[in-house]
């Protein structure tokens, strides 16, 4: 589709993409990452026959075509039903007030556009936070309000509800990281991130459409097996035992992880992805908590060993099911508090978003971030540190779910300022940070050519920030560390550094916060941080 894209174009000419991404037109990166400025693999020639690919030449969701006009009609009708349900108290009390405010009071000033890392990196009209929202708003006005069609010429509700519209809108709901940077700058307080979230909910809760990685391989698998990684209780204990042995060999410190300790002060819940992909992170936690004398445990009951809750990104029902299980099992074990491991969305799901559905005796279990606990430990004097062991450039990525959404800004910084002599901030940082591009589940989504898009487009601003933070020592001879205290952010940063070859070209690697803490411990003789891509 050529020319400037209009709102109503979303429902027109469904046989061709609404927009096309030219990587040469993306915001430039500094050398040696400027030529080429990234590539996005073209879809296979038969892709359009197998699935819907009419948004932007990228396919995250592999939505099949309806098999008949009747099925197509039924799906569109279903969507219309869902649109109405979003505005009912029974079905959507959970977000009705913020959603209604976002629906009715956007003044169309486009202030949010420049706050969005996806739009800023690409300049694509369809990635403006308001594009998706305005399509949805016009659909609501026309199809979910009394006399909507009659009033359409006045209200500007010119979007047609058809298969093209809903199939594009489904894909477009997954071009937003739900980081809410747009909401932060909105003069009215309208939350376009929330609108993307509610659209995802509509698709999931009414039509049963959700990314396979988040639903079948995510929440459903977690509720069935215990973890979205597929690990059951036996396997997770085995894996952690291996990690303990490795850590003991590596550090010379006897590392043991306690399991299912009734009445423990702290129940630590990791994102189980850490155990699979970054074992040094749970290992480092064990070393620190043991050294500080914390009365802690991991738990194997139910889903208690995996803090993941992808329901946060697309489905209130799945969110509630998982959050209730997390806290119920902690209550049963009699622990005093749940401490969130280095996982941003886990923080947000259990600590705030699910807070108000945790009623009655579930309130007995307190929920707290690992970051203030680590700060307490580091400054308690219980562990001896030698900051010179961390004398290399370090920058900090602020996970949106921990920083912008929960306001936990300073504990991690106080630790880094103390333990890392060459710590430097990105610009902007703190609550004004840019999302890594992996937020809202993207980091685990890799269908078709979506990984290319999330790295080259969604992660572009973050990669630029990382390069800028290390601009004083750009060469590979100086090893540099991006501290990202969040599992999904680490997954995205790993993919980003690999995509650009940043370890080889610039000496940049990444990891969590606890790894830096252990690396600075006097009792740990060998360097804990490995300068390799993992």
């Amino acid at each position, binding site marked *: 589709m050529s020319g*400037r894209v209009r709102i109503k174009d979303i429902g027109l000419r469904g046989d061709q993409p609404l927009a096309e991404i030219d990587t040469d037109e993306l915001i430039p990166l500094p050398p040696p990452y400027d030529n080429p400025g990234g590539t996005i693999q073209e879809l296979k020639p038969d892709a359009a026959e197998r699935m819907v690919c009419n948004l932007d030449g990228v396919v995250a969701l592999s939505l099949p075509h309806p098999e008949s006009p009747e099925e197509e009609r039924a799906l569109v009708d279903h969507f219309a039903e*869902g649109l109405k*349900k979003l505005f009912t*108290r*029974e*079905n959507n*009390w*959970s977000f009705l*007030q913020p959603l*209604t*405010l976002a629906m009715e*009071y*956007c*003044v*169309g*000033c*486009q*202030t949010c*556009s420049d706050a969005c890392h996806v739009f800023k990196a690409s300049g694509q009209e369809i990635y*403006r936070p*308001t594009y998706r929202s305005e399509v949805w708003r016009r659909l609501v006005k026309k199809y979910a309000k009394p006399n909507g069609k009659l009033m359409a010429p006045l*209200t*500007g509700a010119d979007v047609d509800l058809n298969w093209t519209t809903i199939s594009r809108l489904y894909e477009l709901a997954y071009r937003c990281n739900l980081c809410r940077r747009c*909401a*932060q*700058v909105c*003069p*009215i*307080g309208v*939350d376009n991130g929330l609108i993307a979230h509610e659209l995802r909910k509509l698709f999931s*809760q*009414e039509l*049963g459409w959700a990314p396979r990685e988040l*639903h079948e391989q995510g929440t*459903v698998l977690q509720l*069935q*097996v*215990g973890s979205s990684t597929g690990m059951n209780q036996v396997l997770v204990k085995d894996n952690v035992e291996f990690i303990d042995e490795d850590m003991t060999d590596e550090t010379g410190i006897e590392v043991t992880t306690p399991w299912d300790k009734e009445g423990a002060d702290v129940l630590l819940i990791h994102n189980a992805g850490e155990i699979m992909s970054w074992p040094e992170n749970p290992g480092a936690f064990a070393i620190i908590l043991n050294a500080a004398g914390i009365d802690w445990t991991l738990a194997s009951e139910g889903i208690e060993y995996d803090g993941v809750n992808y329901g946060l990104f697309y489905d*209130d029902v799945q969110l*509630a*099911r998982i959050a209730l299980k997390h806290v119920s099992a902690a209550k049963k074990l009699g622990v005093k508090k749940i401490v969130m491991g280095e996982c941003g969305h886990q923080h947000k799901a259990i600590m*705030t*978003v*699910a*807070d*108000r*559905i*945790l*009623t*009655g005796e579930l*309130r007995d279990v307190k929920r707290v*971030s690992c970051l*203030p606990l680590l*700060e307490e430990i580091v400054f308690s004097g219980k562990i001896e540190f030698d900051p010179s062991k961390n004398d290399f450039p370090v920058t900090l990525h602020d996970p949106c779910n921990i*920083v912008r959404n*929960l*306001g936990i*800004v*300073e504990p991690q910084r106080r630790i880094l300022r103390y333990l890392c002599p060459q710590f430097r901030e990105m610009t902007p940082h*703190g609550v004004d940070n840019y999302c890594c591009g992996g937020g809202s589940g993207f980091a685990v989504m890799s269908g078709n050519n979506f990984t290319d898009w999330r790295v080259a487009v969604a992660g572009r601003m973050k990669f630029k920030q990382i390069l800028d933070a290390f601009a004083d020592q750009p060469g590979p001879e100086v090893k540099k560390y991006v501290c990202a205290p969040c599992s999904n952010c680490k997954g995205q940063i790993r993919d980003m550094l690999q995509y650009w070859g940043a370890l080889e070209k610039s000496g940049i690697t990444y990891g969590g916060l606890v790894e830096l803490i252990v690396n600075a411990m006097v009792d740990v003789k060998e360097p804990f941080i490995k300068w390799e891509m993992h």
Partner: protein
Amino acid sequence: MMSGSIPLAVCYGLLAIFVVAFLIRSLKIARLPLHLRWELAPVPKEKGRGRYGGSYLEEFEWWKKPREESLVAEVAYMLEEIVFLKALWAHNRRLWWFSYPFHIGLYLLVLAAFGGVLASGMAAVGVAGLGWGILPKWIVWVAGVGYVLTALGALGLLASRLADPKLRLITTPVALFNLVLVLAVAVTGALAVTTVPGSAVDAVAFGRALLTAGPVPHMAGVLTAHLILAMAFLAYLPFSQMMHFVAKYFTYHQVRWDDRPLERGGAMEREMQKLLQQPVTWAAEHVHADGRKNWVDIATEEVPR
């Protein structure tokens, strides 16, 4: 010069629509159910932390310590936003140059309107005459500056909406109509102030007539047109997007800044328990809703392992 009058019934009708619709729409937002926590930093009331976006969740074992909130910091943030449109200044400077005079102009007109009501009230009870003291003069100046600023701002915003492709992208006919309506109110007001001798005294007399249900004075045509347009604008306001000044209270105080945790045994918990009893009708298979099961049933059902 043309002149005219306005039937009292029309005035009361328009003002009644304004008051009733304004209250209903505001109450409708306020009465929307308690939602899940959805706060967004910075939360300025967080004492000592709000300036950098921190919250009480930065404290280990925060529940053992009293919540420290700063009303001064919250009010200071609100004043900066209301008086200077700080968010727009910081993030969309180009539009601020039009939006700022537009809003400041409207603030002045509201102030002048209050002055007008005060003067009319005093005239109605006989405390003062129509030309009492300096009040009408003061009203004329405030209103005059308000009309000019509002008109300039509205013109700028209108031109931006028509000329700037990114604004045109999401501009609807209604949004243009809103600006034209405000522009018409401001221009007629400015004309009345500048071309009609004693317009403020006439306006106060009109106000007295409204308050006492007395005879509406005969006024200059442009002033009559202005008063009709102003009242029509008020009647229309609650049905429009321009109610965003009310919505903004809720987006900030009840969404972005509402970081209250639920307290066991508290009113919030009781409200939440009622909400969780509502039946669910979402149709996707994995929800397992049948229209009878409530949120508790659905969220706590066991999945076969």
